[in-house]
C-alpha cells in the first residue's frame, strides 16, 4: 500500500475504504487479494461437495428397514465375570434408535444366562460397539446374539 504509516492510521479511524481493493480506473489490475480468491474457491468446492454428497443420498433409494448383524469382537476376563465386546452393524437402509442387543450364553453345564446392551443410535450402513457382561466364560459355551428391537430416530 502506498500510504505512510500515519495516513494509514487515519484511514483506519475515519475512512471506511481500504484503498487496495478498489479496481483501478483502467481496470487493468484486479486487486481482489489472491487470498480472497483462494478462500472463496475452497468455499465453492466445499459447497458443491456437500450438496453433492447430501444430494446423492436422495437418489440412493434404499429405505429398507434396519437389519443388524452382530459379531463378537473380544472377550476378556474381568473381576467377577467376563466382558464381551460386540459390534453391531446396521445393514439396512434406515437408521435405528434405542437398539437393544441381547446375548444369550449357554455354558456346557449349568443354567444359561443373558446380558443386554442398548445403543442410542445406529446409522444405516454403520456400526457401533458395546459390551455384554457374563458370569461364565462366553468362549466356553454357546453364544447367541440378536437385536431385540429398535425405534425410529
Amino acid at each position, binding site marked *: 500500500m502506498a500510504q505512510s504509516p500515519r495516513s494509514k492510521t487515519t484511514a483506519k479511524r475515519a475512512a471506511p475504504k481500504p484503498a487496495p481493493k478498489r479496481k483501478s480506473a483502467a481496470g487493468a489490475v484486479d486487486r481482489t487479494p489472491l*487470498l*480472497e480468491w483462494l478462500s472463496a474457491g*475452497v468455499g465453492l468446492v466445499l459447497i458443491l461437495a456437500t450438496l453433492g454428497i*447430501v444430494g446423492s443420498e436422495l437418489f440412493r433409494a434404499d429405505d429398507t428397514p434396519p437389519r443388524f448383524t452382530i459379531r463378537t469382537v473380544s472377550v476378556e476376563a474381568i473381576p467377577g465375570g467376563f466382558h464381551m465386546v460386540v459390534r453391531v452393524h446396521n445393514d439396512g437402509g434406515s437408521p435405528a434408535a434405542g437398539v437393544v442387543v441381547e446375548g444369550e450364553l449357554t455354558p456346557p453345564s449349568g443354567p444359561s444366562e443373558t446380558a443386554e446392551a442398548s445403543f442410542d443410535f445406529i446409522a444405516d450402513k454403520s456400526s457401533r460397539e458395546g459390551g455384554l457382561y457374563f458370569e461364565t466364560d462366553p468362549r466356553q459355551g454357546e453364544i447367541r446374539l440378536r437385536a431385540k428391537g429398535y425405534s425410529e*430416530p
Partner: protein
Amino acid sequence: MVERAATRASGMIDASNRLYLQGLVRAFGGALLFALPLLMTSEMWSLGGFVMDRTRLLIFLIASLPMLLGLSYYVGFEPTFDLLDEVLDALAAFAVGFVISAVALAMFGVLDPAFTPADLIGKIAICTVPAAIGALLAGKQFQANGMTAQRPSHGGHGAALFLMAVGAVFLAFNVAPTEEVFLISHLMGPVHTLVLMTASVLVLHGFVYALGFPGQDRRLEAGGLGRTFFTYTIPGYAIGLAISAYCLWTFGRFDDVALHEQATMAVVLGFPAALGAATARLVT
C-alpha cells in the same frame, strides 16, 4: 521499469492480502463465537448425521446460500465493494464455517469413522450454516475498522426486515434443535401460549422502539409508536414465527405432531426468534 511496476503491484497485493487475512481471522472468531454452543449440542450431531431428512437438509443448505450472500452485503467480515466481492466473501464464510465445524467436531470425537461419509458430511454441514452466519457477523462483533460506516447506506424497510430475520435465525437456531422446545410446549397450556405471544410482541416492540432498526443510522423517529408497531413489530414477529416454524420443520420436530402442538412449538421458539429480531441491530 517493468520490474519496478511488478514490485509495486506485488507490494499492493501483499498489503491487501494482509488486510483480507485480518478479515478472515475475524471470520473464524465470529464463526467460533456463534457456532460453539451448537457444536456442543448433541442434537446437532444426530440431526446432521442421519436423523434429519436428507431433502430437508439439502433445502436448508441451499436456502442458506442467499442468506449468506445477503449477510455478506449488509454485514460481512471485511468491507465489500461489489457483487463479486460479496459472493467471494459469502463463499469464504462457508469455507470458514465448514472448517470450524469439522475441526471442532473432530476434536470432540463426534466424527466417528464408523459412520458413513454422508453422515459425517451431514454432521459438519448442519453446523456449517450457523458457523458461516457467525463468520459474516464478525465484522460487527469485533468492531472491524472501517466497516461500520459502510452500513447505513444499505438501510431501508426491506433491509431492516432481512436483518430482523437474520437476528431471529441467530437466536432461534441455538434453541431450535434442542428437546426443550418440545418439552416447554408440552408444559404450556393455551393461556401460557397467548401470554408468551403477547410477551414476544411486547419485547420485540420495546427493543425496536428503543434501539431503532437494524441497518439504519439512527432510530427512526417518524411514524411514532403506532406506525412502528404495524410496519416493524408485527412483520418482525411474523418473520420470527415463520423462521421458527421452518427450523422446527427442518429438524423434524413437526413430524407426526398435532397442529395445535406445532403452533405452540412455533410460539415457544418464536420468543427467542423475536428477541433475536429485536436485537438484530446489536448483532448485525
